[in-house]
């Protein structure tokens, strides 16, 4: 048996309401709220590393293992503070995991985190490490006046994979990837580029549907056998649409559907949705999670919750508890915090 030994989530304290953003650009707030209602905003002293750390710390609290037993750390992010210099070693050092550890940062747009979880799973399954830590964390940027400004937010989720003390067994995995340039960011650019409608059918829907179908076929399950389904959520409607087209009901989709109040946390996105489900799942529940990363690909996991999940869940805050603690900021503060205001250089 290989599975999740500990999981942790983290979202920043601040939020901005989408109507604040709509006001600035003269968009219709009612229309924009259908995309996302409000999203998380990181503090000036937060970045994807600090978010990854906090999520991982919460995972350790649930796993209750000695950090030194973790043999690999992978952080997936598209908003690394250093283009060259690993975030994973900072988090590994800060958590006391070093020095006997494999570490690397991953990039695959919004599915870098889930790929990190897969690699962790594979290493543990192969018996090469006792525990492995896969994290997805981002403080994604959306260009002013662009559609993505309404959705790009900050947050992260961490998963410790092991063969012992399992709280959610990984029953099956399946990945589907092709070279599909639906969204990218060239080296040195501050904001990403996206291709509007092309990001839908040929990218998001094709890869998620193929990946989800692939994993269900592989294990011989249909949506009826699955308790909860979590999909990558770049906006409020896509995950519900793709879930429905795969045959899932609203009840199966809703617990993992967090984007209306969190926004799209990119590498953290589907993983955070998974933590929201783990926050409520009961022993025996079957969970499907399919991520999506532009470029493009989808990782699918089918998991089964164990009794232990309910025992350790309370060791760290749930996403719901974090969602309840919030402070709204206006657009100016948001723009300042996200570095969109041209300040005079101090030096």
């Amino acid at each position, binding site marked *: 048996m290989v599975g999740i030994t500990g999981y942790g989530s983290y979202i920043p304290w601040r939020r901005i309401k989408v109507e604040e953003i709509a006001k600035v650009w003269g968009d219709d707030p009612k229309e924009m709220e259908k995309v996302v209602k409000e999203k998380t905003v990181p503090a*000036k*002293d937060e970045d994807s590393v600090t978010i990854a750390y906090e999520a991982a710390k919460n995972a350790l609290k649930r796993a209750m293992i000695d950090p030194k037993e973790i043999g690999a750390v992978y952080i997936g992010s598209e908003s690394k503070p250093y283009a060259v210099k690993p975030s994973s070693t900072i988090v590994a050092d*800060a958590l006391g995991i070093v020095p006997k550890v494999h570490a690397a940062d991953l990039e695959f747009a919004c599915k870098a985190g889930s790929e990190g979880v897969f690699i962790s799973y594979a290493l543990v399954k192969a018996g090469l490490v006792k525990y492995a830590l896969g994290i997805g964390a981002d403080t994604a940027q959306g260009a002013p006046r662009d559609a993505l400004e309404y959705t790009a937010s900050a947050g992260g989720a961490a998963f410790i994979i092991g063969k012992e003390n399992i709280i959610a067994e990984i029953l099956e995995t399946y990945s589907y990837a092709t070279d599909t340039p639906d969204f990218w960011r060239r080296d040195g650019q501050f904001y990403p580029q996206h291709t509007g409608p092309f990001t839908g059918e040929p990218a998001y829907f094709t890869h998620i549907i193929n990946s989800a179908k692939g994993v269900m076929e592989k294990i011989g399950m249909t949506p009826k056998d699955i308790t909860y389904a979590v999909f990558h959520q770049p906006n409020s409607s896509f995950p519900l649409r793709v879930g429905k087209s795969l045959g899932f009901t609203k009840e199966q989709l809703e617990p993992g559907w967090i984007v209306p109040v969190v926004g799209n946390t990119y590498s953290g996105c589907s993983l955070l949705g998974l933590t929201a489900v783990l926050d409520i799942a009961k022993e025996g529940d079957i969970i499907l999670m399919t991520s999506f990363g532009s470029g493009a690909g989808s990782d699918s996991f089918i998991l089964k919750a164990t009794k232990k999940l309910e025992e350790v869940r309370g060791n760290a805050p749930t996403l719901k508890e974090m969602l309840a603690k919030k402070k709204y900021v206006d657009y100016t503060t948001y723009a300042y915090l996200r570095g969109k205001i041209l300040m005079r250089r101090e030096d």
Partner: protein
Amino acid sequence: MFTIPRIWREKPQRYRLEASKCSKCGYVMYPPRKVCPKCGSEELTRVTLPETGKILTYTIIRTAPLGFMELSPYAVAIVEFPNGARAMMQIVDTDFDKIEIGKEVKIVFRKLFTEGESGVIMYGPKAIVVED
């Protein structure tokens, strides 16, 4: 000036809140030291500070020094831990009117300082007021 060797050397106390505990008199000091200031003993062991503490005093910095202007205004407090150790830390993610002497804080991991657009980032502990 945030020299790299210094940042690297200070990881135990900045990343993991490592402190020294005197084997003779039990005094806990942060950052770690070689000599106990209370009893002079050199027999010190390494301990980790607990995750929560209490505010002894605080202020709101409104005229920030070089390098900290982007956070201004921000709160700085002297936090006392249950084992007696004390440290100075910023208080973050808390409305200023919710900060009071005696309130409990929990320690979080944040960027302490960034050396401009191209320099190093120093990470370390800050505190958040715990509200029930």
